[in-house]
């Protein structure tokens, strides 16, 4: 039974300790973020009393001198930004006032010293005694966009989406949030697990699996204290929710049996890799690839097989992408079925590639791309589609629009046409995917080089990822296909 983390991610009221008037301090920043991102519950601040004896107001919020002053039952989540020595008493009192979950942002615990480790042990014992959810210590905080909760000492506040993030590195939480903000593929919950003293990555992921706001788990792990437990628990989740994992840290294990060849070949990385595959985890090697895998799992349907058809408006892209698919162990380049080939042939001038990749060779008319996307995705012999070479018209429109002749000389009309077409293409890709229940991935470097290109913007508007390169689309699709196959084999 998963630990109930609802008071952590959907608290009725939040209280922050360690709030001072210095806008650079964690307490202040946390209070600011709680008050600035749309959280509808009550927010309380606890800090040092005004030495003059007057009421202290920070960010329009009256500062309580102690958690004693907290109204009974008004706050379920306590965010601790006070030093180690004060925290046990604060937590005990807060629990008496109705707090049910504690996020300890403060450092100085096991990561710092032996004394700190002892304090951390006492913290865990206290949380157990009081039946509190204890997150951290030494973490950056929590976000929960569905309820506008930004209880963290850093930015950004990510857009709302379906990815649940749990990380043993706070900076990687921020990295995932940055990618979410950039791509528009949002986050349901995020937590920087810090030292993960009482609540582990597995605890978070388990709760995400039952969370109606979350479709995909995304985690960064290093130094798992109980790898077997992590394996067993994640394996129980992956049949219903995909879990993307990035592992950091080189050797963590002790000495292995030295006399055996098996022992000498059993590196941490190989064992972790086998474990991840066995448990159906999606293992990514970089933070960027992990986010893109999670974003893909969150926004594309699972494919029924490994076959991919590449659609491209022109040459090189298709060739390189076909190479990437052919050399990928989990993907195959679909041989175009005869009936599909005949149907495409009827739509295009004879110079098209007559093969996969389906290269239009510039032979498209205004209806070709949307019709082709629907036809190819709808064919029973096709599992997934990668669409390349969009955004050219949008690029042309941008230059035309910014030049000295726009809007005269008939330019306004053509610019509008180009931009409208780009939006249609993006929408057609999403529609084809939704209608036929298959992944349709759009890739273009314009996703990063010109994020306001109307095609890129329109892909975003369909709540899908515009992949920054065909390689990255192929890598993400590979993860999707592998996961789907793992799941099918166990259905």
């Amino acid at each position: 039974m998963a630990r109930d983390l609802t008071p952590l991610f959907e608290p009725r009221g939040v209280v922050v300790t360690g709030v001072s008037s210095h806008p650079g301090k964690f307490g202040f920043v946390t209070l600011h973020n709680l008050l600035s991102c749309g959280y509808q519950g009550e927010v309380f601040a606890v800090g040092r009393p005004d030495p003059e004896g007057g009421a202290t107001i920070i960010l329009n919020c009256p500062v309580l001198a102690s958690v004693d002053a907290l109204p009974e039952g008004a706050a379920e989540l306590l965010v601790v930004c006070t030093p180690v020595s004060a925290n046990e008493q604060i937590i005990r009192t807060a629990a008496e006032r109705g707090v049910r979950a504690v996020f300890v942002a403060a450092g100085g615990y096991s990561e710092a010293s032996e004394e700190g480790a002892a304090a951390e042990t006492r913290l865990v014992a206290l949380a157990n005694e009081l039946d509190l959810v204890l997150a951290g210590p030494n973490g950056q905080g929590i976000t929960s966009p569905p309820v506008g909760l930004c209880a963290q000492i850093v930015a950004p506040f990510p857009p709302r989406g379906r990815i649940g993030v749990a990380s043993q590195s706070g900076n990687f939480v921020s990295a995932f949030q940055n990618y979410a903000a950039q791509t528009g593929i949002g986050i349901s919950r995020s937590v920087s697990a810090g030292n993960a003293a009482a609540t582990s990555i597995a605890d978070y992921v388990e709760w995400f699996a039952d969370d109606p706001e979350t479709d995909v788990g995304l985690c960064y792990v290093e130094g798992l204290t109980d790898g077997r437990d992590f394996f067993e628990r994640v394996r129980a989740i992956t049949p219903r929710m995909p879990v993307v994992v990035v592992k950091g840290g080189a050797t963590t294990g002790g000495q292995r049996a030295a006399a055996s060849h098996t022992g000498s070949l059993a590196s941490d990385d190989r064992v972790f890799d086998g474990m991840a595959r066995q448990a159906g985890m999606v293992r990514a090697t970089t933070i960027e690839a992990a986010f893109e895998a999670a974003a893909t799992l969150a926004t594309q349907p699972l494919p029924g097989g490994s076959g991919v058809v590449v659609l491209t408006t022109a040459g090189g892209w298709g060739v390189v992408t076909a190479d990437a698919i052919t050399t990928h162990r989990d993907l195959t380049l679909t041989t175009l079925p005869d009936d599909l080939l005949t149907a495409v042939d009827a739509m295009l001038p004879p110079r098209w590639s007559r093969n996969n990749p389906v290269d239009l060779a510039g032979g498209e008319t205004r209806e070709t791309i949307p019709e082709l996307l629907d036809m190819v995705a709808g064919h029973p012999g096709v599992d997934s589609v990668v669409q390349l070479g969009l955004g050219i018209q949008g690029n042309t429109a941008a230059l035309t629009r910014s030049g000295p002749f726009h809007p005269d000389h008939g330019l306004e009309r053509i610019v509008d046409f180009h931009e409208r077409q780009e939006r249609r293409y993006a929408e057609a890709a999403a529609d084809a995917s939704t209608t036929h229940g298959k992944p349709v991935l759009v890739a273009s470097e314009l996703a990063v080089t010109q994020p306001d290109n109307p095609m890129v913007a329109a892909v975003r508007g369909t709540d899908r990822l515009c992949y920054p390169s065909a390689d990255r689309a192929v890598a993400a699709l590979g993860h999707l296909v592998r996961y789907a196959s793992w799941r099918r084999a166990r259905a």
Partner: protein
Amino acid sequence: MTTLSEADSRTLVAEAGVIVSRWATADTADNAAVVAEEMGFPVVVKLCGEAIAHKTERGLVRLSLTSADDVRAAATDLLGAATESDGDVELLVSTMVRGDRELIAGLVRDPQFGPCVMLGVGGVLAEAVADVAFRLAPLERLDAHELIDDLGSQTLLGPFRGQPAVDRDALADTLCALGDLAGDPAIASIDLNPLIVVEGQPMAVDALVERT
């Protein structure tokens, strides 16, 4: 850490379901020759004892012996090569198995994840090639098949130099058997190195069990 003799290791893995090459032990060179004649030539003769873990490195393996005289001579040699630190030794005679493909399989206890089953491409280059993959024990059959799929050298597992493809079900049996042996806490690790593929069938021609 101590090891079982090859004979005891073979018995242990064979009882768990691993297919091992035909073998017998002998206490003297003459008896080794008798055993070899019953078995049919060619045979392999090795020095076998609890303290002998790396036979090849010490030259304690004699391959492709084709007559009783050869076996007697090799066996006499091997017994003479035994040192005091080898403790009790005997001779292990086994059928000389030939195959172009060698795999390695094993069991190891990982400090983070507990018992793991390994499969890899074997032979003398095994550690340099390092085409190996792992699964946590015990293994479901599906896990075993996916472990086989994980190897990079898939062409090696298909039809190869006139030999049929590796029998993946039989290989999965061996991997599952290794995984089941993880339930015995007295076993620290197991090496089946090599598993020679004969007419598609993986067969262990050496086994080394390390005790906890």
